[in-house]
Each structure stands twice: as C-alpha cells, then as structure tokens.
C-alpha cells in the first residue's frame, strides 16, 4: 500500500471532480454516486483528489511503507 486514502462519506456529494483528475484511475463513483476506491494499489499519493475536492471529503497520505 503506497498510500492511505480516507473518504468522509458524509461529505461526498459525488461531483466526480476527484475521479476526473486522478491520473491513475484509482477512484470511481459507486452505485449511489459517491466516491469509492476502485484501484487503491495504483495510487501514487499525488493529492490531486484532495486538492480539488470542494467538499473536503477525500484525503490522501503517503503510506507507512512508501
């Protein structure tokens, strides 16, 4: 695990900004239209999702092993 992705589901409105800006297709919207981690291993902890989230719903930290 290169990175830790934390999602505050109560804040996510499913706008898709994080999904669109993720350079590694780590994120996707689930059946209910909220963000989910679809491919966590691909995350490079670039922080684009967190930077652009208008709802402060997603946070990414470099993992312990990284």
């Amino acid at each position, binding site marked *: 695990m290169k990175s*830790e992705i934390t999602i505050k589901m109560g804040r996510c409105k499913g706008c898709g900004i994080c999904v669109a800006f993720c350079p590694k297709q780590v994120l996707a919207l689930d059946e209910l239209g909220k963000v989910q981690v679809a491919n966590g291993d691909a995350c490079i902890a670039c922080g684009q999702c967190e*930077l652009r989230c*208008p709802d402060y719903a997603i946070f990414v930290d470099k993992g312990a092993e990284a």
Partner: protein
Amino acid sequence: MERSYEKYFRQNRLPHLWCPGCGNGIAMKAIVQAIEKKGLSQDNTVIVSGIGCSSRASGYMDFDTLHTAHGRAIPFATGIKLANPDLNVVVITGDGDCTAIGGNHFIHGCRRNIDLTVVLFNNNIYGMTGGQASPMTPLGKKATTAPYGSVDRPFDACHLAEAAGATYVARSTAFHEKHLVDMIADGFDNKGFSFIEALVQCPTAYGRKNKMGSPANMMMWMRDNAVMKAAWDKLPEEKKTGEKFPIGCFYKAEAMDYDTAYDQVIERAGGAAK
C-alpha cells in the same frame, strides 16, 4: 489524516449547502488555508459576507461571522474595522453581491483603502436564485434572464478595484488552488483594501446552461484558459483571444489605509490616543 485547516471550520455545520461540484468549497478552503499560512488568530478575525451562494460561507467558518444583507458586506465590514482596528476583517462576496447591488459600496471601499481583504467568488451567475445574468456574466453566455445570450457588457472586477483605489488586486481560480491561497495570503499582508477575485465553477446554474460539461470539465477550462500574469504580459495582443484571461497579482500600491488616516484626524482634533 486530519488536516490542520479543519479547525477553522464549524464541523457541526458541514457538509455545506453548495451543489455537487460547486467551486465555492474550494475557495472557502483557500481562505482558511491563507489564514493559517499567515497565522491570523481565530478569535481576532471576522468573516463578513453578503447574500448569495458565496455568502453562505461565513456560517461554516469558525470565527466571529456576519452574514449581512444583499450587497452590504463592505459597509458592515467598514464599521467593524473602524470600531475595532485590531480585528482582521475578511469579506466574502459574489459577483452579483459585490458588483451589482453592492457595486457602490465596493468602489468606495476601494477608494477609502479601508483595511479589508475582500474575496469575490465569481461564478458568473446568480446561483441562489436559479441562474440569472450577473454583471460578470460574459458576453454571449446564457442565463435564465439572458436566454438568447447576454448583451450586457461585463465588469472586469479587478480593473474596477484598481481604478477605484484598491491597493492590492489579484485573481485566481478554483483550479489553481495553491495559487489562490497565495493570492489571498498576500492580500492579508497588505494594510489597505485588498481584492482577490476567485473564479469558481457553477455547474448547476451556469455550466449546464452554457454546455460547459461536468464540474471537472469546468475546472479544466480554467486550467486551459487562465494565463499567469508574467506570461500574459509577454503575450502579443493578437494571442489574447478567445476565452483566455490572466491570473496573478495585477496591482500593488503603497497608500495609507483609512484607519491610520483617521488616527491622524483624532490626533489633529486633540482626541485621546489609542
């Protein structure tokens, strides 16, 4: 994982009321990050807002906060600053709030050079009332009150602020989040009227009507069309075309702020020193 800026939000008020993908949340975060960067005290900073989507920001921010009437944030803020000059006074306003109903207050705040930091969330539309044209809706763009495209020439609020006497004028966008934080933080450093226009996407009322795609697409539009001032200045006129626009700090000037000037009035009148 808890971010240090979270302490500047009233956690029990979140999530905010803005639509999915609205850029206001990004601009609000940029303000608290700038506050953190400059180490402004939470107990000594007042957030003043007008009416509209942007102006709901004050309710989420953990400071003394004042949600005023439509267009009137700058006069209230002027009174606060003069009554207690030790307070840092930040104004959050929108394009309609600041340049239409509050236009006169805006230019006179600039003229007085009262020590406020005014952040205008420019979404190019009246969002709260459902998408009517504002004085900052670009020519040709559609709104519910401009169904055939707007023919009202828009304001460039940065030009307006500079011409009216503001001593710090800058623009950034929701896409350029870190740059936006810097522009606001530099505004805090200026003792005088600081104006920062933050271009934010309104996917619901503006983007949809003008076929601008998803919220992410609207941010990509900002990425593709915003040009940093240094590059913009070197751009030949014929290349400043289409929807390209400059961002960065446009203007800085040294001038006495209103409160300092009024202290001289008190001195001349023989009044009590502070």
